């Protein structure tokens, strides 16, 4: 088109002043407005849904008030400490002397202390492995734990004194470590540590074998090296530091013994140390924490600590034990022959570290590698008794005697009441996904002992659990059942009544003042706020018709209710609420059935009712059902009228009849959202998802039914 301004056809009529482009522009404008409103609607809906989903999934930090492993370990330690003929002491020298003095004695402590008295004591092989440097280094000896230093490439490159200290450490550690009392690394492990050092320093190591270890002269550097961490590594580090200074280092060197975990915190969070020492490997959360502080830790294994199981040199029957035998020897066995019949029938004399010792913990953890869940019922009962109040313990006993409870049941109680996993912090989905490291770092910083896991608040347990005051145990079963019961009553009440009224008004009602008034009233009732219906329901169903709605009339009183605040009252109230909607929608549907159908029916000699039943209603039904689906969906989501009618705020019993007291999903959601704790908002989001799914399921069923209906009509 050459020019869009005027028509290409000439017009001679001066009365027409058309501007076609303008008309098109206006049309286009309106089209854009309409599209925009659709898009806005979709965006708002999507935002709503995303908001809900955001709350329903995400990371949680769960903190046990006591770790289950620790409980299990505690049990074993208690068993060891209370075994007969047991001497326990924090002083390892005392233990060593005790063991040396009797052929029937046995005990364990750090390898260093064995070395001190190698002439009086003899270490045993454990599961056929002797505590030699090789076995410890390769990990075959089960009672060994590695020792580490951690730093970062940046620190090493920026502070040559740190690089030099580590260089010196790795260079000399194998010469000194056995003297300190630990085990040296094998060549391979030491080489790996040295390669790590070179990599961190940016030295090309593609052909590592040909690259020689660049020894740095301590005299060439100065400055400040700060290390903190494991008390186990501490003596080794102290020795290395002394030697470093002897070799000519003139700067400052600070070594603190604060424990491995605290060492990592200093290194990663406060970031004020150059090196962290540890008697265990760094864990994932700590790595994330470090990364957040822009520190990427590199690991140097420097040695190994091992426990020696020792007997006296005088002992003539024992050279090797198995882990299984160790468990018996240090707990239940009374004589050596109890463990192995070929051993003498002499009482076992045990010498073990005291309750405050980390060595005892390590021994219990390594030897009695037992999960809390696997402990025998009696042990679990003992744990429970030791950790809960007497009153609570008695209550458990009176509910179901412990003798009748299963091991799983008691384990459940122990977890619930003693381990007490408690959610200390939650994160929404998008934060969990898009700033995962921030979340993990935050969790590690604020709740170092907590376990961080990704959870779906919407899970099978949430569906089947009843309401609970504890958000982790709370579920929506009661609410789902309440909603289903209520909606069933609502439909049974409102559908026949509403459709019936619509048929009467459309097909039978004469055109008079009274019927006009009724019609106007119905239209107005559809706009009355739902809480008004709640008040009506309270006055009529709960109070006036109490005998009916509480079930007294039928002798079916629910013992927990005994008043009119029942499912029946709720269902009837919601029924009243949606009755006008159903009537109006059904009227419209009936109106839209063409009159020709009525005439055809009547013309054949059918009565009015036959015509309505066989032709008008079936043809109106899809429309009637659409209206009903909309109305029922609204009823499912109603909260306010049910609050007035008296939905229970906290019930854990399932509704069993129309005369049960009740709660519904929206009530539950309303309640949870008004709680101050974060976790309740998460389960409220999950409950909203449940409600949405329930709604979608009910609607899909109804739509399916409706479609089959209209298909059959046309068939």
């Amino acid at each position, binding site marked *: 088109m050459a020019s869009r301004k005027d028509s290409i056809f000439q017009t001679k009529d001066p009365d027409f002043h058309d501007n076609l482009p303008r008309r098109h522009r206006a049309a286009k404008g309106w089209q854009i407005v309409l599209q925009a409103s659709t898009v806005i609607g979709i965006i708002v809906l999507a935002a709503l849904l995303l908001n809900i989903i955001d709350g329903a999934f995400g990371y949680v930090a769960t903190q046990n008030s006591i770790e289950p492993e620790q409980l299990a370990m505690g049990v074993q330690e208690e068993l060891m400490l209370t075994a007969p003929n047991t001497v326990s002491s924090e002083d390892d020298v005392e233990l060593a002397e005790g063991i040396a003095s009797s052929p029937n004695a046995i005990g364990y402590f750090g390898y260093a202390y064995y070395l001190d008295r190698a002439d009086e004591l003899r270490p045993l092989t454990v599961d056929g492995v002797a505590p030699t440097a090789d076995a410890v280094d390769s990990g075959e000896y089960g009672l060994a734990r590695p020792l580490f230093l951690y730093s970062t490439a940046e620190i090493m490159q920026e502070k040559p004194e740190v690089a030099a200290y580590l260089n010196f450490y790795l260079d000399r550690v194998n010469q000194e470590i056995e003297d300190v009392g630990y085990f040296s690394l094998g060549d391979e492990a030491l080489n790996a540590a040295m390669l790590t050092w070179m990599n961190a320093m940016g030295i090309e190591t593609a052909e590592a074998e040909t690259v020689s270890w660049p020894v740095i002269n301590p005299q060439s550097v100065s400055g400040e090296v700060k290390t903190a961490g494991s008390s186990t590594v501490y003596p080794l580090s102290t020795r290395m530091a002394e030697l470093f200074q002897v070799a000519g280092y003139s700067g400052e060197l600070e070594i603190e013994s604060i424990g491995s975990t605290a060492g990592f915190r200093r290194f990663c969070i406060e970031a004020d140390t150059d090196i962290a020492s540890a008697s265990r490997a760094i864990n994932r959360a700590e790595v994330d924490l470090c990364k957040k502080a822009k520190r990427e830790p590199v690991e140097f294994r420097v040695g190994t600590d091992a426990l020696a199981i020792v007997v006296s040199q005088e002992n003539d029957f024992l050279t090797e034990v198995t882990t299984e035998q160790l468990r018996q020897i240090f707990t239940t066995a009374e004589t050596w022959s109890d463990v192995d019949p070929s051993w003498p029938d002499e009482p076992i004399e045990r010498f073990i570290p005291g309750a405050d010792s980390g060595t005892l913990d390590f021994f219990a953890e390594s030897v009695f590698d037992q999960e809390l869940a696997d402990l025998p019922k009696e042990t679990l009962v003992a744990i429970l008794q030791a950790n809960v109040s007497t009153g609570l313990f008695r209550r458990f006993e009176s509910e179901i005697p412990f003798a009748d409870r299963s091991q799983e049941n008691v384990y459940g109680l122990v977890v619930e009441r003693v381990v007490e996993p408690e959610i200390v912090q939650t994160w929404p989905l998008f934060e969990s996904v898009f700033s995962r490291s921030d979340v993990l770092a935050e969790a590690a910083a604020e709740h170092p002992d907590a376990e961080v896991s990704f959870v779906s608040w919407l899970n099978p347990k949430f569906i089947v659990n009843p309401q609970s005051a504890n958000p982790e145990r709370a579920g929506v079963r009661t609410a789902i059942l309440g909603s289903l019961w209520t909606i069933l009553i609502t439909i049974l009440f409102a559908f026949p009544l509403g459709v019936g009224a619509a048929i009467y008004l459309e097909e039978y009602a*004469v*055109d008079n003042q009274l019927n006009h008034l009724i019609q106007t009233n119905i239209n107005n009732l559809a706009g009355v706020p739902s809480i008004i219906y709640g008040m009506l329901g309270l006055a009529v169903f709960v109070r006036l018709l109490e005998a009916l709605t509480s079930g007294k009339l039928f002798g079916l009183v629910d013992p927990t209710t005994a008043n009119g605040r029942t499912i029946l009252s709720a269902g009837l109230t919601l029924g009243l609420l949606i009755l006008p909607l159903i009537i109006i929608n059904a009227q419209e549907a009936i109106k839209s059935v*063409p009159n*020709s*159908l*009525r*005439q*055809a*029916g*009547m*013309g*054949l*000699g*059918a*009565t009015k009712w*036959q015509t309505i039943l*066989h*032709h008008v209603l079936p*043809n109106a039904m899809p429309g009637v059902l659409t209206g009903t689906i909309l109305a029922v969906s609204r009823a499912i989501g109603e909260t306010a009228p049910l609050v007035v009618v008296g939905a229970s705020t906290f019930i854990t019993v399932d509704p069993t009849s129309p005369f049960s007291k009740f709660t519904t999903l929206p009530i539950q959601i309303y309640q949870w959202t008004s709680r101050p704790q974060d976790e309740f908002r998460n389960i409220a989001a999950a409950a909203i998802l449940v409600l949405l799914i329930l709604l979608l399921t009910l609607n899909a069923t109804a739509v399916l039914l409706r479609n089959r209906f209209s298909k059959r*009509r*046309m*068939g």
Partner: protein
Amino acid sequence: MTDMSNRPQNGRYAIEARDLSVYYSDFRAVKTVDLKIEPRKITAIIGPSGCGKSTMLRSFNRMNELVPTAWAEGEVLFQGHNIYGEDVDPVQVRRHIGMVFQKPNPFPKSIYENVAWGARINGYKSNMDELVEKSLRRAALWDEVKDKLDQSGYSLSGGQQQRLCIARTIAVRPEIILMDEPASALDPVATLKIEELMRQLAENYTIIVVTHNMQQAARVSDHTAFFMMDDDRAGYLVEHGPTKELFTNPKDQRTEDYITGRFG
């Protein structure tokens, strides 16, 4: 309520309006009509728009009463009974005096069900398949639909739908069939078919047909009644007689004016 079905026909007319006036509320749509309908003949009702033709037709089986405000004065005698009599049920009247409408209005059901439904609700207990086939044959539709009886009545063409409506009407075995402009919504070919069908049906049924189309009236009808609207907008019967006579030699000037196209 008396059962009329077994009574012998009384008098020589199929149906007879005596001094019949039809009202909607207080508006008189048709006034003081006396009209005798010959049995087994086709009577056409013609006249200008709004002259009460349809109202007149519907008053023969009380279909006008579907409009809540409609009422009638006078008598319509059928088998010797006034169908407006107090003891007469309009439902029964319609079973004996069937109706075919202007626009084809089959039920949204299968072709078979369209035909069978009317018979079933009126208590037909014999072989339904036979009745459906016979009715469809009489409506000259059988050959076209015999292989798709379970398909929707809506799947047929307009003309076929109208014949289906006729089949549906004759399935309840009425004595009189009222047709309200039965071909006005159809194309010429379908119209011709309907007209042929009407001629065939006239061998067994009394047919009263309202039509706008004077050629159609001249072609198919045996008798013609000419209606006009008075100054008070009430329709009245101007002239009634054998079609040939009325079209060739009308007694009334107004009839002549109308059929020669001077007004209307």
